[in-house]
């Protein structure tokens, strides 16, 4: 069972990365318009070059 000594910290660390990513996306206002973001992916307006 010594493997637990590695596996538990590793799994917590990986989960922590996910949590950090969630915080980052929250700070970036990515949840302000879920409906709009779901539709924007369908438009090809800025496919070739990014929006200026």
């Amino acid at each position, binding site marked *: 069972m010594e493997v637990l000594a590695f596996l538990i910290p590793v*799994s*917590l660390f990986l989960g922590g990365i996910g949590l950090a990513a969630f915080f980052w996306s929250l700070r970036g206002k990515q949840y*302000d318009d879920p409906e*709009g973001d779901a539709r924007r992916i369908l*438009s090809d*307006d800025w496919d070739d070059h990014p929006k200026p």
Partner: protein
Amino acid sequence: MDGTVTPSVSACPACAVAPAAADVAAAARAADSAPVLLSVPGAHCALCISTLEKGLEKLPQVRSARVNLTLKRISVEAAPGVTAADLIPEVARLGYTAHELDSGMLRATGTDTTGRDLMMRMGVAGFAMMNVMLLSIAVWSGAQDATRDLFHWISAAIALPTIAFAAQPFFRSALAGFRAGQLNMDAPISLAILLAAGTSLYETWNSGEHAYFDAAVALTFFLLIGRFLDHRTRAVARSAAQELAALEVPRALRLTGAGEAVVPVAELAVGDLVRVLPGARVPADGVVEDGTSEIDRGLLTGESLPAFAGPGTALAAGEMNLTGPLVLRVTAAGRDSSLHRMADLVAVAEAGRGRYTSIADRIVKYYAPGVHILAGLSWAGWMLYAGDMRQATNIAAAVLIITCPCALGLAVPAVMTAASGRLFRRGVLIKDGTALERLAEVDTVVFDKTGTLTEGRPEPTNLGEHPRETVAVALALAAGSSHPLARALAEAATSMGIGPAAVTELREVPGYGVEGRFGERSVRFGRAAWVGAEAGADTAAWLRIGQEPPREFTFADRLRDGAAETVQALVARGLRVELLSGDAEAPVAALAQRLGIEHWRAGVLPAEKADRVARLTAEGRKVLMVGDGLNDTAALAGAHVSISPATALDAARTASDIVLMGGTLTPVAETVETSRRAIRRIRENIGISNVYNLIAVPLAVVGLCTPLIAALAMSSSSITVTLNALRLRR
């Protein structure tokens, strides 16, 4: 719920003018850098986003535009000085209706810090729940001794800080409840979380078998979801409803010895002389000193026919001047004006409406003490039976966890979110948290006529009966006037492909009509008496060419889109439909017959409307009032629940619980239907969670409930109620 209804202030634009003017001035200063915000209820698809953003960004004065489809809003970065009023026509050219949003008020709600805060706590609780659950699975599947203790300790290390951070909203609300001497829903929740965490820590310390860290964290997570949904629904509705800002700041043109000065309406005093231009609202009650014109009393009384105004005519604040400039001597201003008396009427009606207790509140009243008593009894029973404090406390904690109010904390917000989201997509804005529940109980619908069932805009009805040349002459005369009948005639004639005849020497005689010369003959278009005709029962304008007998052009108020279907659908559902109008008997009777409304009354005063609603309520009926005018506000405020169209006066919108954003009435029937389904879902959900409780609570009381059973019961009941709620979205 969100407590935004302040009728005593907003039902009376005139008396709140000083602070409002100050707000507007402050907003104007800040607006230089702030984006212009517009509400676009019609936006619904990917194409709408492209059309609106690209269309607006083509304009030279616009730097960038961004559509928020969730809130149905555009935020436009524009050159300094560009206002919403400049952009609304541009948006209309792209094919969308836009309303102004007050960016000053939005700044408070724009960055939704409470929502983000709740989401952050939700993320932390979700992360902790996943990890603690994984560790718990090892324990459930048979980890022993040192391994079990290690896993419990790690769970504790994750769960305790999580609870301390993520469950704060519940602790705070429970504490606030205690201070107010009330046992709210958060009291049993907080107690369950704290007791579960406390006993689990004690058990872990003593190498015990059962720890409920997973349950404590899962409870926090599920209830935070409910809290977040609740917040989101209300934030969307509040931000959109509150900030449909009234465009006009009430101002008046005061005549002084030195000339004219623009002053806020609040500064008018009795005896002042005021000039009222055509197209403007009368700022205060008064008597006409000079000039003739016609006035539209539609929003105040519901009359559809413009009335004549000349020297000596008494006018009331809020009426619209149509054709000629008037000079008015103020007889009552501010608190004494008829507008303010209307506000008093609203306040009285509001007081008459009983405080509604929502389903959730009604259940919590029994639930919160019941759960505490049950847990206390099982603790006392086990103390008497076994005398083991540790065992008794463990069992009490298990009872509290099992009876977790997920059905109330998660199921009600989930249903409300699904229902109001569905209605929001159809252009229905729910302003009040309990509006849907109240709407579901409705058995009587009272409609206003002008502006609600009709658009308040006349439409010619007998244009086809006149020769084309005659219509061409009428068109030439009407085209120069801003009178609503003239404009309606001009619009209809132009759309029939008729061009104006060559009429010269056009002259508008305010209050009477328009005259001119057609070839050799003089022509007149206007009031019956002025043209030399006998006035009939219908709304009409008369045309006389030379010495020919006058011709009558009749008009009828145009039906609002969806009015007929709505009335039919409501009657088909077994609701009693009534029509109360301040208009004259003939047009009201005609409309009632056209729509198939059996019960109608004409010439109803504002106070009588409120009385009628109160009488229906006294008969035990639950009344839905649909209206738009100032004369409806008291009835809107007094009814069990009320709906107003977006075109309604600010005061009417504030007094009502639900606002229709589109131009059609069709959603009314669907809103009633959806509200009934939502309430059925809530009842089902409460039933479902009670079934889970019936199975699991006896197990918990007799001490057979393991953390595994607690986790299963809690998760499966939460998931079932959420799925059941989501069925509403279809």
